[in-house]
């Protein structure tokens, strides 16, 4: 139902959709992301359940499809409707942050940045969340080795705390 609303109010925003096992999914472009989020918020999708990403290194970037899918899950508490929003993103591209609108986005976006290396523009505190600041690479990228590679190489590392400020 919500997808029809998005179609009516922002025609052309939804570039792809599917409904697998009852999970409504829409794919939108990065440019239309913030208007769609505003619309979702107005329509009662007030709970941002989860933010994550999926890495597809094989996907052809030449055809304009980025390497990453940033995946958002929303929940409408009144109607119990769920919606998955996916945005394709090229390596090095940044997503607009939702941390001001949804406080829960703050840490979820930090986690995505930590594990995938996707930056979020305008995020108040874009630091790693799970791994340490000197960690090399982004662990959930498909090209990151499963055994962790040479993560304990501490060459060039700075002390974790430097006058209370991290750098």
């Amino acid at each position, binding site marked *: 139902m919500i997808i029809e609303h998005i179609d009516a109010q922002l025609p052309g925003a939804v570039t792809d959709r599917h409904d697998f096992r009852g999970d409504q999914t829409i794919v939108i472009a990065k440019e239309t992301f913030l208007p769609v989020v505003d619309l979702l918020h107005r329509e009662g999708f007030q709970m941002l359940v*989860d933010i994550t990403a*999926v890495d597809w290194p094989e996907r052809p970037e030449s055809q304009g499809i980025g390497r990453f899918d940033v995946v958002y899950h929303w929940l409408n508490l009144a109607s119990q409707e*769920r919606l998955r929003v996916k945005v394709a993103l090229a390596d090095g591209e940044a997503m607009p942050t939702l941390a001001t609108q949804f*406080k*829960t986005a703050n*840490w979820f976006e930090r986690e995505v940045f930590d594990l995938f290396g996707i930056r979020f523009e305008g995020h108040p505190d874009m630091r*790693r969340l799970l791994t340490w600041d000197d960690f090399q690479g982004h*662990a959930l990228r498909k090209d990151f080795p*499963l055994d962790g590679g040479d993560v304990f190489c501490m060459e060039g590392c700075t002390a974790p705390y430097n006058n209370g400020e991290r750098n």
Partner: protein
Amino acid sequence: MESIAMTRQMLDGDKMIVNMGPSHPTTHGTLRIVLELQGETIAKATPEMGYLHRGVEKLGESLSYQQFIPLTDRLNYCSAIMNNVGYACAVEKLLGIEIPKRAQQIRVLVSELARVADHIVCIGVNAVDIGAFTAFLYLFKQRETVYDLFEMAAGQRLHTSFTRIGGLFRDIPEGFVPATERFLVECTEAIDEMERLLTRNPIWHDRTKGIGVISAEDAVNWGYTGPCLRAAGVPQDLRKAQPYLGYETYDFDIPVGTTGDVFDRYLVRAEEMRQSLRIIRQVLDRLEPGPVNVDDPKIALPSKEKVYTRMESLIHHFKLIMHGMDMPVGEVYSATEAANGELGFYIVSDGGKNPYRIRVRPPCLPIFSSFEDQVKGGLIADAVAVLGAMNIIAGELDR
């Protein structure tokens, strides 16, 4: 002497930095909070996590769907069986199968036992952190009984790995139901005892009322789920709102608080334990005989007896172990109401033996992210109370 004091004051602006954790008795696992104190008042609190990060999601990409089950034990290790159930439900949703009635009922039974155990840990330890030791002792006896029951059912107390894709590891043994009946009586008494010790205790009131207050809108905005959200006054419980495993057929209530403070969270948890016991009672009354695994050799392993005596079963066993299940291509998000809130699994399948991407949505990560907001301006002793009432489990938080 005076000049030294002056210099110190000028240097750090009269603030004191205190590291709470990573190994502090109240952090329940390894997490750290860097507190900036002005006297006893918290000026800034910076939570630091990741000490227990094991890369569960990364590991999942190289393990088969069945092999991932033991890793789910280690998410919320206080109620491991609920993680097993949540994960199995997610894979079954991806496969599009429904499990037998008896398996559903047993899953509900063990989930509710785990919820009681988890709330016992949360309330008991929260009380200990604040200084009320006795309630903890009364409650932990019951937690021990729950783990004894798990040991009977799964052979393991903590890391149960009780579910399989399409059903259960095995049926509950003889003697499980009578033992659960005894537990129902004893646990109700223990909860009464606990409530007599805490609910009207003036010291408990002083320490918990008005601490960690959060409005319903803020709680939703922070992504709260579970008892913490319900304490703030939002009657959201996935067992009622989006029923799974036949929860819609059970009769139970959802307790809701008003202010969202530590006391309300305690009351909500206490009542949820009673409601869980109610559900367990209903499961025991209606437990029907039957198989506990789907009758599909491409999903559930055949019994050992058949593997040794029948050719087809041997082939199915070999195929299932070596090549895994035939997974459809697609993505699902499945959420269950775990003890801490919405435990979600987002699985992306490319049709292979292993999941292409497996994401665990931990309930306590969004809750913990609001920690600074909750304790800023409060006293350091209140931080301990808030942390305990949030029920942060580091294994689930860091994955």
